[in-house]
C-alpha cells in the first residue's frame, strides 16, 4: 500500500504510535496499521533502536515492542513514581520465568516436566502480572504456549532476552541437551 514510505518514515511512525498509544504493540499489528511489510517493520525497528540515545528505550520481547525509560534514568524515575512496583517474585515464579526465557516458548506441561512440579498456579500469577502471556500453540490447538512480555523485560531491566545473563550460552546448552536426548531415543514422548 505505502510504496513510497522510507524506512526512516516508518521508524518515526512506529515511535509516534508507541508513544501515543502508550502500550506494547505487536510487530504484526504495527505492519498492519502502517501498511508495510513485516520486513519493513524489522528494518525500521533496527534503525529506531540505534537512534535512541537518550531517556527513552525500545523494549522488544520478540513479538511485541514497547517504549520504556532508559536504564540510566531508572533511579530518578523510581524516586518520582507514586505507585510502588513490586519486584518480588518467589522461587517457583523465577524458575518458571527462567524456563520460559531461556527455553521458551513452552506449554504448561513442558514447564511442569522441566520443574518436576505442577506450575498451574505459578503461571496464572505470572500471567496476571503480565510477566508472561498465553499464545495459541501452532502445534496443538488445545494447548497454549507461554512467552515473555515487554513487561518482564522491563522488570529485569533489559531491552531484549539477549541481554539476559549467559543467554546465548544457556540456550545453546539446553538445545544441545535436547538434541542429544532425542538422538539417543527416537520414541521420546512429546514431553519436551
Amino acid at each position: 500500500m505505502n510504496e513510497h514510505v522510507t524506512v526512516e518514515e516508518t521508524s518515526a511512525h512506529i515511535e509516534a504510535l508507541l508513544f501515543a498509544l502508550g502500550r506494547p504493540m505487536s510487530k504484526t499489528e504495527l505492519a498492519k496499521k502502517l501498511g508495510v511489510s513485516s520486513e519493513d517493520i524489522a528494518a525500521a525497528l533496527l534503525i529506531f533502536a540505534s537512534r535512541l540515545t537518550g531517556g527513552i528505550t525500545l523494549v522488544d520481547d520478540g513479538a511485541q515492542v514497547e517504549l520504556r525509560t532508559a536504564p540510566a534514568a531508572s533511579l530518578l524515575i523510581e524516586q518520582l513514581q507514586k505507585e510502588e512496583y513490586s519486584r518480588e517474585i518467589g522461587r517457583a515464579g523465577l524458575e518458571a520465568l527462567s524456563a520460559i526465557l531461556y527455553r521458551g516458548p513452552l506449554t504448561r506441561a513442558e514447564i511442569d516436566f522441566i520443574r518436576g512440579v505442577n506450575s498451574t498456579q505459578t503461571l496464572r500469577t505470572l500471567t496476571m502480572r503480565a510477566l508472561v502471556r498465553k499464545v495459541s500453540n501452532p502445534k496443538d490447538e488445545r494447548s497454549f504456549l507461554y512467552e515473555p512480555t515487554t513487561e518482564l523485560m522491563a522488570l529485569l531491566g533489559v531491552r531484549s532476552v539477549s541481554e539476559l545473563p549467559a543467554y546465548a550460552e544457556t540456550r545453546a546448552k539446553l538445545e544441545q541437551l535436547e538434541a542429544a536426548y532425542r538422538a539417543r531415543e527416537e520414541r521420546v514422548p512429546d514431553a519436551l
Partner: protein
Amino acid sequence: MPISIKTPIYEGPLDLLLELIEKRKLLINDIALAMVTEEYLARVNSMESLPVGETAEFVALAATLLLIKSRSLLPLLTLTDEESEDIKELEYRLAVYQLVKNAAKELVGQLEEPMLYEGTAQEMSPAFIPDPSVTLSSLHGAAQALIAGFPQHLALPKVQVKTIMSIEEMIERLQERVTSALRLSFKEFAGVGKNKERGEIIISFLALLELVKQGIIKATQERDYGDITLESDSVSTPSYE
C-alpha cells in the same frame, strides 16, 4: 538454648534430587544417582506429607532411583527398554532443570538492576461510546465464563503422566529383580571391598534383611563373618558363579 532446625523447602522431587547431587559435587549420571538414592528415600520418608499433587512424581522418581541402585548392586540385572528410557529421561530432566535453576538464580541478580519504567500516554477525556455487544445477556454470559474459567480444580490432585506407584510396589519390583538375579553373594550385592561407603552396605543389608524376612530369598552364611549367599526360592537352577 533452643535449637532451631531449618528444614529446607524443596520445590519438588527433581529439586530435592539435584540438591543431593550438587551437595556432593557430583555430575549428573547413573553413578551419582545410585549414590544419592538412599538419602533421597530417607528425605522423602521424613517428609510429614508430600505436597498435594506431587506425590506421584516423588514416588515415580524414587522408583527410577531404586532401579538405578539395584542395577549398580546387581550386575546381572538387565533393564527393559522402558526402564532404560526412564533412567535416560531422569538424567535428561535433571540436566535441564539444573540449567534452568541456575538461570533462575541469575534472574534474582537481574531483578536488582534498575527496571525500565512505562511512559504515561496522554489520554483523551472519556467519552461515552456504547458497544452493541454489551447486553444483559452477554454480560451474564461473561460472568458465567469467569466462573467456569476459575481454577476451581486446583485443590484436587492433578492426573499424573506416570502411573502412581506406591512404595510397596517399588519394593515388590526390587524383589522381582533379586529373584531373577538368581543367586548371588551379599558381597556382590552390597559391593563390599569396592570402596563402597559403610552406610551404603548397611542400607543394602537392611534391604536384604527385609527381603529375607519376607521369605523372598534365602540367605545362608557358611561361617561367622563369612560371605552370605543369597538364593531365590522361586528359581531352582542356579546359574550364577
